[in-house]
Each structure stands twice: as C-alpha cells, then as structure tokens.
C-alpha cells in the first residue's frame, strides 16, 4: 500500500469516523471535519501535475485476488489526474457550501457526510484504478452512494422514487459493463487497462469486439445520462443541492465520459465506436437542450442542461476517436481538435455548472422557491448571487470572454472539421453534426437567457415568497465565488491549463499518436480570425436573442407546457410491468405449500440434470468392473429400501420419526463400513440432536392426517418421485464409469500426501475442514448462524398484529 492507495481509500476511512464526530461533537457542524480531507487530497494531487505534464505516469500495484487477475492498481496519468483534481477540488467547495446549506439542528448530517465520503472515495477509485474489476467495484459504489444521497430526505416520496430510478438505470448499465469487461478479459487475458491497450490488436481482431464495446458503452451511457437513459438525472434533482452540484454536474455523471475517454485507445478508430458515441452524444445534446427550454424549475433547467452538455462532450469524444483511425501524429489538429475541446469543456462545465447549481441552491434557500414563474427582480436584492449567475450563464451560453465561449468555439470547430473526414460515410452524413450542434447551441442560449431574465430582472414581488428574501450568508457564497472566478480566469488565461492539465489528458486518450517526447499542440486563443466557428457563434447569439424575445408567443404552445420527458412514461410502464410480472410469478410459485415447492424443485432438477446427461451422452452403466457386494451390505441395503418405502405408509407421527431415525442410523452404519468415522460420528450426533428436537416439538404438532388427493395429483407425484429416484441412481452409477473414462485424477491423493506435511494433522477430514478448505467451513458455520438467527427472529419476534415491524 502506497500513499496513493491510502489517498484513494482515505474517504472511506474517514466515513467510519463521521458518526462519532456527529455524536460527540454536536456543537461543531460535522462538515468541518469532512472539509479537511478533500482539501488535503486536492493539494496532494496537485503535486502530481509536474509528473504528468512531463509525460510520465505513475503505477502502484497491490495484489488483491492475484489468482483471478484482480490487483488494486492505482494509475496516475493526465486523464485520471484531471478527474482526481475535479473530484477533490469541487468536493472541497461542495463540502464547504453544504456546511452552510444544511442546518446542523434538524438534518441527519452523519448520514449525509458518510454517503458523500463514500461517494468521493468511490469516484477516486473509479478514476485511479487500472484494473477493470476494481474499477467496476468502485463504479457500483458510486451508484449506491448516489442513490443514498438522492433519497437523503427519504420521507419525501419523490426522493425515494428518484433514487430508485437512478439505481435501476445506472446499476443496469453497471452490470452490462461488467459483462463487457469480462469479454475484454476473454480476449486479452488481463483486466489491466494498460495491458489491454498494449495488446489492442487482440481486441480489434476478435469477434467479441462489438459485443464487448456495446456492453461497456451501456455502462458509460447510463452513468453519463445519455439519451435515452437520461431520464434519471432530472429526478435525481430531489437530492439536496450540494449533492446535485457535486454528483450530478461535476463528477459522477462524468464517470461515463471518463470511461469512454479511458477506453478510446482500445475501441477508438473503429466505425462502430465513432458512430454510436457521436450519434448518441448529439441526440442527447439536442434532446437535453429542447427539454431544458421547457422547464420551469431552476434545478430542472440545470439538470437537463447537464444532460445536454454531457451529450456535447460525448459527441466530441466520438468525433475525436476518428483520429486513431488515421494515425496522423500530433501536428495535425484537424482530427485532434475534438478531443481537445472535450477535455477543455469537461473542466469548464464543472466550473460553471457547479457554480450555477450552487446559486440555484442559494436562491431556493433564501426565497423558498425555484419556480421561474414566481421568481423575478432578484438582481438588486441578491447582488453577489446575481453576479455569479451572470458569469456562469454567460459561460454556459458560450459568450466571450468566459471559458464556455472558448470550448464552445472549439466544439463548433471540431464538428466542422469532422465533415472533412473521408471515412465512415462522413461524406454524406457529416453535415449533420455542425447543424445539430448549432441548433442545440441556440437552444442552450435560449434557456440560459430564460434562467437569467426570469430570475433576476423584472419587478420584485414580495407577495410571491413565503419568507423574507435576502442575500445569502457569506460562507455559502464562498464556493460559488471561487468557481465563478475560475470561470473568468480560465476564460481570460486559458493557457494556464493547456500544458498542465489538458495536454496530458489528451495524451492519455490518444496515446498511440505521440512519438516519445512529442506533445499535442494546445494553443487556446480567443481570436483566431473570422472562421466558420466564429460565424456560428454569432449566429447563435442573434437567433437566440430573437427566439427569446418571441417567448411570449411560443410559451403558450403545448410544446412549452409539457414539462415531463415523454420517455418517463416508458420507464413508469416498465417498472409497473416488472412489479406486476414478478408478483404473478411469485403467486404462482410461492403457494405456501411444501408439496408445491418440492414439485418445482424436483421437477427442475429432473429437467436440468436429465437434459445435461442426455445432451452429453453421459448415461453410462458399466457392469464389467463393478466390485462385489458382500452379504451384510445386501442386508443393510434392503433394510434401507424397506424403511424408505414404509415411510409413505406410516400414519402415526412417532412411527414416522422412528423410521426416519432408522434411515439415519443406517446411513451412519454405511459410513462406518466405508471407513469414514468422522462422517459416521457426525451423522449419529445429528440424528441424536434431531430426536431431541422432535421430542421438544411433538407437543405442538397436530396428528398426522391422511389426505385424500385427486388421482391426477397422485400420478404427477408418482412420476416426479420415480423420475428423481431413477435419475439420481443413473447419475450415481454413471459417475463411476465416467470417472474411469475421463481419467480424472482423484484429489484425495493430494490430501493423503500433504495433510501431515502442510497442516500437521493425521486426520485428513479435519485437516481439510480447518486448513485446506477453512474458508468453506467458516462460511458454512456462518450460514448455520444465520439460520439460527432466522429461527430466533421467526419465533421471538413474531408479528403480533401491532405496528411494530
């Protein structure tokens, strides 16, 4: 474990301590204890900038389950460092903001900060892991912790619904992603991303290339709220605003972007990757922008705007992946502009969207509402909030001189460049991208304008608010001010980031294009002559203003009034169908009758085992080499059979118990005959304890009653019991013959040779139990313990009819 490992799991370690801080230091807001960690981590990760900007990477390995190829490897390169800085940097600001946002008097802060730290650690794990399985584990922890955060106010039905929705969708994606990772393992025999990239030929030539890619992209698209999986993101806005600012704009939703960027060297350069990502991205971009215009709630506008911007970044990653096809080297910016724009916009989006969410939270906190139909005239009452919002919105709309302008211009340039690609049918469909990009940008401009003018201009009407409206306390303003200033600083001095963060991140997305010692050209400037991108921006502003001015006309249209995403209906129907379907299955299967359960279990095993044996032609009865059966064995066997058959005809409970006891003791006798004293002893003792149990419960049991059943029912039972009996006999007999055919070496030899040598015991059975397979034993007794707990719960904590569950 190196410092880097400890840094990755530090949030989890701190999370364990949070309940204690909450309990024993009530007078101090728990957030102050949390704040230290992301700050320290941020400074720690800053120290890696010189390393990655000089083109180096750091890799520290700790074996976890080496036999399965799972190593807890942390890997720092430009891309992961960029994300780690975003996570810890924005994390610090969000924690600071939350200290003022959540009151320590009436909020369950311990829960909040535990979940937040869990999330932070998981996110760091996702971006720093080199091993796909470890990445997957952290990935699912982000899903779980984010749904916990969404349902933080769990007494509201909307919160729990939103949490469930995000959980369903992101975990669905996560599981298919695991499938994709497994396919990658099948192709390359490793889980390490770096080794996969090194052996990329194995992947591209494999027939599993496309399935693996689609499965992994499902994970990325669900996490990054791409169309049509975006519907969870607006509902996730039920979470407290610091959470929205953190998870749903700056970090978690970008995990999908990260994954796509990280795996671009593996899948990039193929037509499928190019088209799937670009098309899904551009659809999301346009759809998100359309939906955002229709919203009336500040946070909903921001949520759909996030969806749209994520689509933008995704489009750019898709378009940029084409540069791997050409293998052009670092000088040709025609192809790499898109990746540059993606990385730059990622940073910019985190800054302006973070600050916008925080100001939306401030407005909600201080006025009690987020409805743009109620808000208005806040410019003079909340001057600082107004200024930050203005900067954020202008940046999001793509106005100079803010950072959003720069990346928006590059976005246009990237889409225009893409029309010149002579590959993947771009000659015919290429114009799609700049046109859709331009349309979406106009809509973006419009919703930014709506948000700005509806909130801050107009006449202030105090009767619209339930509370006294005033500017937020200073502490709550620090974080948005910092982010707002970053928007301005990155806008005015874009090259501050160019070679420290952006270039190393590009180098990790497109590693194979660089010769050793070579760098991408990342000159970002405000003025680069009158080109198509600039004309497009001017067009966006002009058309955007016209559309906004005509808002009175189109705000009456049904298009504007339908706020809810039509895809939600699909989801709702799906969920209710799932519930009623599973209820139907449950009703058919869980009848409460032991007989029915046995019918299902035995029937299933007959079908499954019978088919398998038949399919592999495994019924083999070998009478030639069977050993002889001594007379007393015949006697034991006959008594066995007799006792078993007689059970069916016994109609007194005590007799039945005695007969079952006979079978048990005969089994013990068999163990003795076959020289297994340990098993025999266990069997005897289990029989004894069972007898005691019977004695104790006899008093409660009703008399045995012979039930008369229909003939058809009896015949079915007869078939099933005959089937089970003959099938298992056949399996037992065949296994003897097959074992000889297959020449399997008996594993008992190993234990005979090594139990004294390795574990110091002569009793092989015991040595296996406590040493060679100790984990099995441990988990078996754990199961027993759970069973005992189950009995205690069923009997002692029985439901008495009152509301005490």
């Amino acid at each position, binding site marked *: 474990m190196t410092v880097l490992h400890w840094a990755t799991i530090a949030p989890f370690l701190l999370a364990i301590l949070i309940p204690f801080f909450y309990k024993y230091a009530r007078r101090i807001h728990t957030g102050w204890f949390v704040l230290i960690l992301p700050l320290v981590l941020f400074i720690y990760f800053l120290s890696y900038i010189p390393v990655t900007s000089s083109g180096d990477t750091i890799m520290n390995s700790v074996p976890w389950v080496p036999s399965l190829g799972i190593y807890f490897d942390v890997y720092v390169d430009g891309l992961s460092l960029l994300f780690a800085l975003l996570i810890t940097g924005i994390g610090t600001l969000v924690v600071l903001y939350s200290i003022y946002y959540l009151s320590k008097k009436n909020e369950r802060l311990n829960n909040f900060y535990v979940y937040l730290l869990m999330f932070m650690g998981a996110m760091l794990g996702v971006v720093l892991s080199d091993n796909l399985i470890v990445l997957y584990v952290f990935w699912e922890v982000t899903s779980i912790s984010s749904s916990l955060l969404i349902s933080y106010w769990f007494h509201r039905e909307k919160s729990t619904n939103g949490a469930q929705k995000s959980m369903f969708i992101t975990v669905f994606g996560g599981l298919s992603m695991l499938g994709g990772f497994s396919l990658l393992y099948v192709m390359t025999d490793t889980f390490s991303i770096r080794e996969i990239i090194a052996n990329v030929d194995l992947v591209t030539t494999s027939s599993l290339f496309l399935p693996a890619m689609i499965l992994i992209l499902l994970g990325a698209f669900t996490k990054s709220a791409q169309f049509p999986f975006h519907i969870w993101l607006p509902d996730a806005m039920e979470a407290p605003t610091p959470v929205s600012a953190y998870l749903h704009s700056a970090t978690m939703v970008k995990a999908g972007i990260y994954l796509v960027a990280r795996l671009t060297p593996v899948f990039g350069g193929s037509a499928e990757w190019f088209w799937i990502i670009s098309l899904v991205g551009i659809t999301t971009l346009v759809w998100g922008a359309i939906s955002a215009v229709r919203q009336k709630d500040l946070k909903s506008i921001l949520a759909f705007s996030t969806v749209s911007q994520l689509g933008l970044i995704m489009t750019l990653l898709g378009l940029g992946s084409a540069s791997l096809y050409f293998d052009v080297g670092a000088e040709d910016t025609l192809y790499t502009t898109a990746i540059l724009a993606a990385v730059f916009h990622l940073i910019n989006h985190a800054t302006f969207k973070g600050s916008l969410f925080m100001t939306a939270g401030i407005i909600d906190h201080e006025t009690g509402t987020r409805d743009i139909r109620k808000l208005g005239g806040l410019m003079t009452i909340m001057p600082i909030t107004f200024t930050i919002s203005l900067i954020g919105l202008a940046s999001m709309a793509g106005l100079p001189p803010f950072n959003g302008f720069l990346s928006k211009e590059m976005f246009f340039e990237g889409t225009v460049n893409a029309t010149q690609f002579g590959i993947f049918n771009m000659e015919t469909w290429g114009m799609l991208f700049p046109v859709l990009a331009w349309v979406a940008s106009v809509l973006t401009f419009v919703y930014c304008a709506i948000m700005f003018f509806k909130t801050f201009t107009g006449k202030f009407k105090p009767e619209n608010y339930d509370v006294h409206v005033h500017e937020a306390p200073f502490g709550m303003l620090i974080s948005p001010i910092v982010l707002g200033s970053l928007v301005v600083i990155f806008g005015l001095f874009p090259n501050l980031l160019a070679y420290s963060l952006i270039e190393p991140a590009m180098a990790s997305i497109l590693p194979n294009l660089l010769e050793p010692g070579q760098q991408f050209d990342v000159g970002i400037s405000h003025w680069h002559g009158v080109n198509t991108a600039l004309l497009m921006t001017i067009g966006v502003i002009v058309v955007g203003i016209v559309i906004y001015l005509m808002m009175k006309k189109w705000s009456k249209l049904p298009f504007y009034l339908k706020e809810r995403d039509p895809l939600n209906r699909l989801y709702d129907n799906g969920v209710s169908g799932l519930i009623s379907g599973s209820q139907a299955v449950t009703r058919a299967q869980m009848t409460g009758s032991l007989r029915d359960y046995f019918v299902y279990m035995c029937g299933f095993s007959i079908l499954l085992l019978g088919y398998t044996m038949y399919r592999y032609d495994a019924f083999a009865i070998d009478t030639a080499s069977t050993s002889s059966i001594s007379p007393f064995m015949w006697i034991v066997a006959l008594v066995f059979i007799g006792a078993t058959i007689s059970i069916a005809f016994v109609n007194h409970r005590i007799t039945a118990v005695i007969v079952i006891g006979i079978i048990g003791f005969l089994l013990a006798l068999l163990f003795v005959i076959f020289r297994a004293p*340990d098993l025999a*002893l*266990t069997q005897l*003792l289990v029989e004894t304890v069972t007898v005691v149990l019977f004695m104790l419960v006899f008093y409660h049991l009703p008399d045995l009653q012979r039930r008369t059943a229909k003939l058809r029912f009896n015949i079915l039972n007869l078939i099933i019991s005959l089937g089970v009996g003959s099938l298992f006999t056949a399996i037992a007999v065949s296994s003897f013959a097959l074992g000889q055919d297959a020449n399997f070496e008996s594993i008992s030899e190993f234990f005979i040779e090594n139990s004294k040598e390795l574990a110091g015991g002569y*009793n092989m059975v*015991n040595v296996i139990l406590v040493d060679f397979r100790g*984990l099995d034993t441990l988990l078996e*007794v754990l199961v027993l313990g759970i069973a005992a707990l189950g009995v205690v719960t069923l009997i*002692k904590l029985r439901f008495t009819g009152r509301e005490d569950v």
Partner: protein
Amino acid sequence: MKQIKSNDVMLRTVTRVVTFIILSFSLYLFFAGHNAPGGGFIGGLMTASALLLMYLAFDMKTLRKALPFDFTALISIGLLLAIGTGVTTMLLGYPFLTQFFAYFQLPIIGETELTTALPFDLGIFLVVVGIALTITLTIAEDDK
C-alpha cells in the same frame, strides 16, 4: 412445552453422571480431532447433546444456573474467533486463514503439537454449540 414431571429419579440420577461423561468425551473428541476422528463440529454437537440431555432431565432454570451463558452470543464469539484466526495471519502478511503448526515441549504432557487450527476449530465448536442450543431452546421455550 409441557415440563417433564419432577419425579423422574432414574433419569435425573443417570443424567448427572452421563452428562459429565459425554462432556469429557466431547472435549476429547475436540482435541483429538486433528489426528483422529473428531474436531470442532463433532465436539460441538456432542457438547450440545449433553446440554440438551440436561435440559430434558431437569428444566431451563437448572440449565441456566449451571451454564449462565447467552447461547446466541456464543455464536458470535465463535464466529469472531474463527475469523480472528484468519485475520491474524493476514496481519502478519500471509493470505487469509493460513494455518501454522509447530511442536513444543510442554510440562506433564510432553511433546505437543500446537497449531493455529485449534483456535479456529474452537470457534467452530462454539458456533455449533451456540446454534444447536439456540435453535432448540428457542423452539422449546416458545409458549404460543
């Protein structure tokens, strides 16, 4: 559960003696387990059956007086002991549940093998005793 009537002199007298024999035998089985038939699971079951016999012959009160443990807690103690054995080896840098053994010269007993499997097995022993008694007594004490 209807209690057995209190005039079972035979049963009680025999139980007093037999319980100790069974208990000592179960201890023997437990310690012998590594080299001869026996071990934590069997020893635990044997002990449990001795205690159950006591319960049958006398009643809950007597059993509680003789053995003032909480049998549910015994399960967790046993599990913790078994897991603890595994974790201890991890702290020393070996994989989970690596077992060690060595031979020592002890007074009276002579040369003896001591192994880390013993505390592990003791954990299993305790869990089995705890489970058997918890399940039986919970069912038996249920008066509904």
